[in-house]
């Protein structure tokens, strides 16, 4: 079994962070995991994205060409990754700032007003976690409890308050799924 997930948004929207949380979730469940960042000059301003693979067997090819599911936080990301989800897969879309005129009907599109929800939680910068919450139901090898453990490992100790609000966001996102 294997979950191949792509995550994309613009720098500052915390897609790398979501990726790390997912990877840690896999690690703590003693799965095989791979966190694959995009790196390069595009960084400056532009869009950042990463891919995460969670598997219950050794991961040979780390190349994620087509993903099982993903999260896109801004327009360029939506345009870029919409075609890169496997038929039957799922894409969580931050509908607050993404226009979904173009779409696909062979995949599940979860439109989540993540920015609004994040604002409503008083933390505009956690739209990423909201979307993560929405994504969870689509994953085979991880779930909310694993995310909780992972969050604890990644931020827990250092910033309890951050920990709380992030998990709240994940929960809220979960309700949208």
């Amino acid at each position, binding site marked *: 079994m294997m979950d191949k997930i792509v995550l994309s948004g*613009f720098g500052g*929207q915390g897609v790398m962070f979501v990726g790390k949380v997912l990877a840690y979730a896999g690690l703590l469940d003693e799965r095989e995991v791979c966190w694959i960042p995009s790196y390069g000059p595009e960084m400056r*301003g532009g869009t950042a994205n990463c891919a995460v693979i969670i598997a219950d067997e050794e991961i040979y090819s780390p190349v994620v060409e087509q993903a099982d599911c993903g999260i896109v936080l*801004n*327009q360029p990301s939506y345009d870029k990754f919409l075609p890169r989800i496997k038929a039957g897969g799922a894409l969580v879309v931050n509908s607050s*700032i993404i226009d979904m005129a173009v779409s696909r009907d062979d995949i599940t599109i979860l439109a989540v007003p993540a920015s609004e929800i994040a604002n409503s939680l008083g933390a505009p910068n956690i739209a990423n976690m909201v979307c993560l919450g929405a994504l969870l139901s689509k994953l085979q090898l991880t779930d909310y409890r694993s995310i909780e453990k992972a969050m604890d490992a990644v931020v827990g100790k250092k910033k309890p308050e951050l920990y709380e609000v992030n998990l709240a966001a994940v929960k809220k996102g979960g309700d949208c799924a």
Partner: protein
Amino acid sequence: MPKVVVAADRCKSCGLCVDVCPKTILAIGDKPNSKGYYPVAVTDEEECQGCGLCGLVCPDLVLEVYK
């Protein structure tokens, strides 16, 4: 009457113009541009004295100032 033209799609909402405007009539807007940034908007066009300071400090050539 002085006038500031904002090329909203170039704006990165860095706030330098907001900070420099002697009339404090510039503010970060609330709807994102294509890049996802929230471009500045002129809150009170009447007040603009056309000093051009905003254009002078804008790193991204967003602003043109007329008088």
